[in-house]
């Protein structure tokens, strides 16, 4: 397999630089929020992580589509790895979201918080992805079934979002409204840098994992050949 470009070390270096810039902007440049105080700073790590998780699931679904279209060998591993990253960042979304809920409203969980509930549903869905994958024999069939499931996941995201919005009317009255992006310039700038840093970090993690998985597969082939 050709060395993919851009190279992983270069991307990782840029990710480090962006993360450094993000930390500076979040903690030194962006002003403290008047209403929420210091706990608002969690926003800069929680929301980009959530968006990155969506991006990873989207990438996983895209690779899955490519697999079903073209039947290229590489797409299965790429889809699987992307979804793996998405699940990691999804778990992080739930954790940072719970901490933010505790900081803002004093409770660790809030059913009226759309983002949290949506992620819980998605998290369940994508955990089942791994269960499905591990219960199927490796081969073309597993690749195709996993791809179909990944595509269903991406269709589920907007549908679940709508459902959760609708559910609030009879589960909880919407008492807490989320503050929208009515942020001033430097806050928005900090958010964008943080988001870029996290996206790139997720992508670097994805590429590194892919390297590991591909090497694993090559080694298995070598082993079979050499011990036959």
């Amino acid at each position: 397999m050709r060395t993919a470009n851009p190279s992983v070390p270069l991307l990782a270096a840029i990710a480090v630089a962006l993360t450094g810039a993000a930390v500076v902007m979040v903690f030194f440049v962006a002003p403290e929020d008047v209403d929420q105080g210091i706990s608002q700073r969690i926003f800069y790590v929680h929301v980009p992580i959530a968006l990155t998780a969506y991006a990873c699931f989207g990438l996983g679904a895209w690779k899955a589509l490519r697999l079903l279209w073209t039947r290229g060998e590489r797409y299965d591993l790429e889809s699987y790895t992307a979804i793996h990253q998405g699940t990691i960042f999804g778990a992080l979304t739930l954790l940072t979201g719970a901490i933010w809920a505790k900081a803002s409203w004093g409770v660790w969980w809030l059913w009226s918080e759309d983002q949290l509930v949506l992620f819980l549903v998605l998290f369940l869905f994508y955990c089942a992805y791994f269960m499905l994958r591990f219960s199927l024999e490796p081969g073309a069939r597993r690749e195709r079934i996993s791809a179909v499931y990944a595509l269903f996941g991406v269709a589920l995201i907007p549908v679940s979002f709508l459902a959760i919005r609708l559910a609030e009317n009879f589960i909880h009255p919407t008492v807490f409204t989320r503050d929208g992006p009515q942020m001033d310039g430097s806050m928005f700038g900090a958010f964008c840098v943080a988001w870029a840093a996290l996206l790139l970090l997720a992508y670097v993690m994805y590429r590194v994992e892919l390297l590991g998985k591909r090497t694993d597969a090559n080694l298995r082939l070598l082993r079979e050949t050499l011990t036959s």
Partner: protein
Amino acid sequence: MSGYFSDVAALARKDLRLELRARDTLPAMLLFVLSTLVVFHFALPSESGDQAAYGLLWVALVFTALLGLGRAWVPEQEEGALDGLVLAPCDRSAIWLGKSLATLAFLVAAEAVALPAFALLFAALDLAAIAGVALASIGICTVGSLVAAMAAASRGREVILPLLFLPLAIPLVVGGVGSSVSADPGTYLAFLGLYDAVFAILSWAAFEYVVTE
């Protein structure tokens, strides 16, 4: 085109006939849904309002559907007939549609018993609630048949189906409970229709990939 629908009808008829002869899935579903409703009577605290009862109705329906879905592909698996069907000169998606229709028939039969029982034991059901049940049942059977086919291909068969199905069923429960409980059921019914459309098309298109070797 007429060939496609006659294939679908033939496949659905086969499943219904099998069930009429064997009579193992439908009685189980009926008994299960009734027993579940009775359990809920004891599980609910005595002053809980109707809202809780409607919620539990949907729990009963989803799990009854799971029972039916778990058995949906068993006839094909036992005889290795799924491979035969796949090789047959019919569109693969017709297999899915036939199976969905048959499963829907069983689910509707179970609901025909469950809904009156619920109305008797717990709370009244208006037209919106019944429409919600109807629309959600379509969604359950279309998505459920696809997901059950995935589960049928896997090793951990019985356990994996609920894991795959429940996250997908959550929007259906929201739509269903909403149409029973809310003052404006139209939104929820429209939502259920949207879910049905989106996921039926997806399932129809994706079934071929799930079932071919």
